[in-house]
């Protein structure tokens, strides 16, 4: 059996790692890395307080990446054994040889010192996959029943995904790491049918997915009781709200919505592999091309954005990445100007930037690491700064946006459209009830350029997602985004009913 917090029995793991790296070296590889991972997850979903599905899942495997004669090759298997380790090295070299047939560029990796042996765990109290399914079901049954008891609520869906990721990494440079991290994404959504029989409205909890254990549901990092208490009344207000009049409005955007706008319009746009065309066939490219570094005005002077893999409870937080690079924090946008990119080792080398900043990640032992998003966060104002109420107070005719819902952005990260969970009319500096059918649409640099003010630290929240997609074959990465409330002037608002031609 594996030791606590390690993917497989330590002695077996060390033999597999040794065999894979030795075989790769003997085959003439300039470099090799081996990852052994065990990813445990538990999902459950309830419909109207009744369990619809639950699953307990353990993914186990080993992957080897080699740099062989200027090409990268990767091979992976679920059979974690000394025999398969040697076959993996052979398979990875074969993949590099196949790639070399159509290689236009010799691959090199940016330098990184050996970090020796690294042992790291994300901060948590109770590993969420260790909590019995019955306890999990009971919690969501109870919360669902409480919501269903409201006369406003016709249906409730509820559920959670809990993940415990144990990852071993070893490379020919001498870095070896054992890392364990957990994450939780609980969600409840209430639904009310229109009383005239036409249509419905929903309202979802705004609690973000986080790098925390089961204690998250007991109130560590979020006030679940308070949010659940309010949800039916908020839904009732939304169901009775007027439909928005399309036009141009000033927006106060809450961090529960803004994190996703940051993710799409800054996070992906500042991935250097995208900006250099390496994702052109799938995820897309970026308007923020390398020739614009240190020159592009991304947004207003109050805009400061960092990438990091170090934030406590951040979903992209690690100690070393999947290429053996030490986690760190770095600037992406400073005073509104583009000043940096997210990097992995091969992109850092191609771009001549010297070092990677630690953004390599593979979502599975069976997938090759690629450049994935760090926790990309917008800094709040210094000191106590403005509160959300202060920002609302600066708007005469506008909309306050809370919670994410629908999202879409183009392949160069210019044109985006977002909806949300709640939209409040702002009239004369005060909230004046909810609105329905709202979407906001803008071009990235226009939107951030029109950001007049950022809220203070008390408005700051770490949001995020489990399901950031990138790469071919597709990989799914968890990532967090911290931000304050912000005030943005003059944003185009659509009425989604009118957009559908009704």
């Amino acid at each position, binding site marked *: 059996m594996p030791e606590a917090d390690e993917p497989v029995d330590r002695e077996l793991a060390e033999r597999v790692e040794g065999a894979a790296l030795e075989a790769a070296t003997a085959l003439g590889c300039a470099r090799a890395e081996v990852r052994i991972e065990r990813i445990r997850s538990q999902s459950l979903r309830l419909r109207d307080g009744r369990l619809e599905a639950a699953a307990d899942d353990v993914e186990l495997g080993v992957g080897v990446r080699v740099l062989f004669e200027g090409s990268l090759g990767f091979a*992976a298997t679920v059979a974690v054994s000394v025999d398969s380790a040697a076959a993996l090295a052979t398979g990875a070299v074969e993949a590099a040889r196949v790639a070399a047939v159509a290689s236009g560029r010799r691959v090199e990796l940016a330098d990184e010192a050996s970090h020796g042996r690294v042992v790291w765990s994300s901060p948590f109290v109770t590993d969420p996959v260790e909590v019995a399914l019955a306890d999990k079901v009971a919690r969501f049954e109870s919360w669902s029943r409480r919501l269903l008891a409201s006369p406003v609520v016709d249906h409730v869906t509820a559920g959670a995904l809990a993940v415990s990721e144990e990852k071993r990494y070893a490379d020919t440079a001498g870095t070896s790491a054992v890392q364990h991290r957990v994450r939780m994404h609980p969600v409840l959504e209430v639904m009310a049918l229109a009383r005239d029989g036409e249509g419905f409205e929903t309202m979802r909890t705004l609690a973000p997915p986080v790098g925390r254990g089961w204690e998250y549901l007991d109130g560590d990092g979020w006030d679940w009781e308070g949010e659940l208490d309010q949800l039916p009344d908020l839904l009732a207000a939304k169901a009775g709200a007027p439909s928005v009049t399309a036009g141009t409005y000033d927006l106060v955007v809450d961090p529960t919505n803004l994190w996703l706008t940051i993710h799409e319009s800054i996070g992906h746009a500042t991935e250097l592999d995208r900006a250099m065309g390496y994702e052109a066939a799938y995820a897309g490219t970026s308007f923020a091309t390398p020739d614009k570094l240190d020159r592009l005005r991304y947004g207003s002077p109050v805009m400061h954005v960092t990438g990091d893999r170090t934030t406590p409870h951040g979903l992209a937080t690690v100690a070393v990445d999947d290429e053996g690079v030490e986690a760190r924090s770095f600037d992406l946008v400073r005073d509104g100007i583009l000043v940096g990119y997210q990097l992995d080792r091969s992109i850092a080398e191609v771009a001549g930037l010297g070092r990677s900043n630690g953004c390599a990640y593979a979502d599975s032992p069976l997938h090759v690491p690629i450049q994935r998003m760090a926790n990309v966060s917008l800094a709040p104002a210094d000191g106590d700064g403005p509160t959300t109420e202060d920002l609302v107070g600066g708007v005469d005719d506008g909309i306050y946006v809370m919670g994410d819902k629908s999202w879409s952005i183009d392949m160069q990260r210019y*044109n985006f459209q977002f909806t949300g969970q709640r939209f409040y009319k702002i009239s004369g500096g005060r909230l004046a009830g909810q609105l329905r059918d709202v979407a906001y649409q803008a071009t990235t640099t226009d939107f951030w350029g029109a950001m007049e003010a950022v809220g203070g630290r008390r408005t700051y929240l770490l949001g995020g997602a489990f399901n950031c997609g990138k790469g071919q074959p597709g990989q799914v990465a968890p990532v967090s985004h911290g931000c304050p409330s912000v005030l943005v002037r003059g944003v185009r608002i659509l009425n989604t009913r009118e957009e559908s031609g009704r």
Partner: protein
Amino acid sequence: MSGRRGDDLGAGLAPADEVVERALERAGGAGAVVLVEDSSDAEVRFANNTTTTNGTRRDRRVTVISLAPVAGGTAVGVARRGGDVDLAEVVAAAEADAASSPPADDGWPLVTPGDRAAAGRAGQDPDFADPPVLTGLGVLHDVVAGLAGAFARAEAADRVLAGFAEHHLSTLYLGTSAGLRLRHVQPTGALHLVGRSTDGARSAWAGTGAPDFAGVAVEDLERRVVRGLDWARRRVDLDAGRYEVVIPPEAVADLMVGVVEAASGKESEEGRTVFSGPDGSTRLGAELSRLPFELRSDPGEAGLECTPFLATPVSGPDDSVFDNGLALARTDWIEAGRLHRLRYHRAGAAAAGAPAAPPIDNLVLDLPGAQGSVEDLVARTERGLLLTCLWYIREVDPQTLLLTGLTRDGVYLVEGGEITGAVNNFRWNESPVDLLGRATEAGASVRALGREFGEWYNRTAMPPLRVPDFNMSSVSPAS
């Protein structure tokens, strides 16, 4: 280099059929279902006229679904494991979860060999004990050789190519305590090619499904990409607004995925979908389009063959673990322009008084008798836009199935039946159900890979469509 190879990466894995038998022997309770999926992958990715991340993979997923009699019905426990599985552990985990769970709403007797015989299918496949069929990098040999030539031509012509070639072979073994022993081999493959001018201003895409890569030539896709880039040498800027569009089959595929995903019986009854009627009813039977479209799934569809029995590790609103092994047959979601079927598992179907209609892994939109290609529709267009791909498609409003997304990799201006240039990209807001209703013309259906959802819906056949008033909501400066 051979197209197939041994199973070096699977060294030490017990034969899949034995895993099924041993797990079923261990499982007690009210029954059990065991799924073993043995799969392998070969992939070559490329960008900027060079290969980038490439590799091979050997996977095994074992799912044990345990049923337990509990007060009020039957409860379910599901445990999934990868690799060389400790069967005692996985069976115990599934049984523990089943024993401590409430009764399942989708509880129903497991599918029996008799049920399958009644559907004209065997309860025990004769090849059940055969080993998995595996793929390897050899299957992509011709593609890689083709890419080497395409990269050289691209370099000479101020063009950069990016894309992906993937081949996946999955062998699924399904056994149940009710006596089923089923096996299915599913090949899935795709080739994507994107060409851009070196300055990034022009972009074009071509892609195809490739279950075995036979007859798939990089050069054929390259010709389509080069044609698109040449069309784009004349650039015309247009404002947002409603335009007549010719939507090619690949883009229609991405739109129809939205329609079939919304066709959930349970969710429609709850009032959550575009197919919901008032007071818990559905719109089954409602006319969706004046043109007599058929939207269907059929595991026997020629060229799009897919798993002919239900295999699901977890239940959903309208697919059930109790239905594992259920024979799948042609299902017409839309027939003669009317909503004809919604997805239901057997328990849900019985409650709704509707036929059971589980999900099936292919999709065909067809207008019976329609002829003609994209080119034919373009030739009959006085002024309009020819689209290439739709991208970043997301649901905005489920009540109307309003979707938003972008055009990508080529919007071409058609004037007098000819392509006269390329137009800027747009953000669009449209409901695919409304598009079927507003379509004025369709061509013949052809196999077509959706740019966005082809990753999950590889097996689709679609016609080109003409829509007279497609809603382009705003201009996207992206290229």
